């Protein structure tokens, strides 16, 4: 235990004095969470769509709501077309004769199809004599398995776990760089000559970084809960089951540490470790729905996304944060992460034995 304590202490001191490493682990994901939660808030939330009605001004008030905001009507159809072309209005409903349903919709080409469809439905509802608001109220809707206060995939609910996972996998950089420096400077050889077994050296490295990963998780959730709303975004809704959140973080950490250790053992230079670890993480993030949410990807890409361990980790976090799931809901993602972590650790052991110090 004394030897392990010495290894842990060394690792803590070394990391606490590595300002770049700390910035990568804590500042980078915090900054991403704040920026991306705010930047994508419209994509996840109610996007405000400005529309105008020509020829039947009183209809505008009826169609407004649920993200559709009525703007003052342009003087004529040509002005309406110009307003749409310039992007000032997303939709202009030109009514010639409402009683005979003689109307035409001018549409901004950048308007997403679902929003266009939603507006068309509102117009059709109004044309049939019903109020869109009353129609929606009469439509019983239940969000299934929502965590307390969450209920839907908002920008902050997507971005906090996503960039937290991204930051956790970045332990690869400080972990591998110190290991490579130890090997390059002969420190590792000295430790082996001092009869420090390799599994003990690994335990000395993995335990501190495991705790760092958990600290990252706690701090990033705090950023989502406090900093993002302070900056004008939505607050992260936290689940009642903190233990499950910790389980998701722990399983993610196992995979991240396995990856970090394999890069540490496999890379021969600091440059190699930075490129392999950094680029590997960025690719896994791009594929796994960290940078671009999976639901906006085409179906084929969504299937490819299933290959990324970051996607598994995101599934685990979403199961808790979004769906308020129990342990069974996390199990598939957690098992995949644990299996990957074990496989990567085994590969690192094998490679180390093959290469020696």
């Amino acid at each position, binding site marked *: 235990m*004394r*030897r392990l*304590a*010495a*290894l842990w*202490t*060394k690792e803590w*001191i*070394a990391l606490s*004095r*590595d300002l770049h490493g700390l910035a990568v682990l804590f500042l980078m994901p915090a900054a991403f969470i704040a920026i991306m939660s705010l930047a994508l808030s419209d994509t996840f939330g109610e996007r405000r769509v400005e529309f105008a009605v020509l020829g039947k001004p009183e209809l505008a008030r009826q169609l407004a709501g649920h993200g559709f905001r009525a703007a003052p009507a342009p003087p004529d159809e040509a002005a309406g077309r110009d307003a749409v072309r310039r992007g000032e209005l997303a939709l202009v409903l030109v009514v010639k004769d409402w009683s005979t349903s003689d109307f035409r919709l001018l549409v901004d080409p950048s308007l997403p199809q679902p929003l266009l469809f939603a507006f068309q439905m509102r117009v059709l509802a109004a044309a049939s004599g019903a109020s869109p608001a009353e129609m929606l109220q009469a439509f019983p809707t239940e969000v299934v398995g929502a965590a307390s206060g969450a209920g839907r995939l908002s920008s902050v609910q997507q971005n906090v776990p996503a960039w937290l996972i991204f930051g956790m996998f970045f332990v690869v950089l400080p972990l591998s760089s110190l290991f490579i420096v130890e090997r*390059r*400077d*002969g*420190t590792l*050889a*000295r*430790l*082996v*000559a*001092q*009869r*420090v077994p390799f599994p003990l050296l690994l335990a000395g490295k993995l335990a501190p970084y495991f705790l760092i990963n958990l600290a990252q998780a706690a701090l990033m959730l705090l950023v989502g809960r406090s900093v993002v709303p302070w900056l004008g975004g939505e607050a992260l809704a936290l689940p009642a089951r903190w233990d499950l959140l910790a389980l998701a973080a722990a399983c993610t950490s196992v995979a991240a540490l396995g990856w970090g250790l394999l890069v540490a053992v496999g890379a021969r230079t600091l440059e190699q470790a930075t490129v392999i670890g950094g680029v590997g993480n960025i690719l896994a993030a791009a594929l796994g729905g960290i940078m671009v949410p999976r639901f906006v990807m085409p179906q084929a890409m969504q299937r490819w996304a299933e290959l990324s361990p970051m996607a598994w980790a995101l599934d685990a976090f979403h199961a808790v944060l979004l769906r308020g799931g129990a342990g069974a809901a996390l199990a598939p993602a957690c098992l995949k992460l644990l299996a990957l972590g074990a496989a990567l650790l085994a590969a690192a052991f094998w490679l180390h034995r093959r290469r*020696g*110090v």
Partner: protein
Amino acid sequence: MLKIASVSFGYPRTGPVLKDISLEIPHGAIFGLLGPNGAGKTTLISILSGLRRPSGGRVQGDCRAIGLVPQELAFYPMLTVRENLRFFGGVQNLGGARLRERLDAVVAFARLEGVPDRRAAELSGGLKRRLNLAIGLLTDPDLVLLDEPTVGVDPQSRAFLLESIAALRSPARHLLYTSHYMEEVQAICDHVAIIDEGRVLAAGPLAAVLGGAASLEEVFLGLTKRRLRD
């Protein structure tokens, strides 16, 4: 007596590095191991320290603790001198009073009293070499392997290091010393071996190896020829 009996070793890509090396390192003596670059000195030290296993032959001896002082500055530059010493003591299972006692002893031995709280990265070249030596002596080892411990230091620091190494001579201890500085070896070693291309060219007490030659350098160049090495 530490016996190296018919030890051979080869790397997969470069082929044999040590070819049937046999040496005897007596207690209480400083044994100088000489050889040009690539002769196999560091590989032999790796085998003695347990980092590599010989492909043939064996090492016989009863050593309680091995102190390796590698050619590289093998410590943590971001840690202070004291933190480095505490760490290397801790991983060798030293703790409590024993660790404090050994830490004080090696700090005094390597004359590091003025710098225990300075980060290792900030030390001068000579102080770094002394810290490297101090770490190797933490367990009061009975086999000390010194791989070119005076590389890159000024004459004062080198003189201090040589005096310190000479002071390590003890009846219960084996000391193996490698260097490219012939005058150093001639000054502090009792026994020497000259190896080249993985073979022992000469070995024995210093006087016997010197024979009638004026200096060890003359013997060394005579045996290893003047051909440049990679």
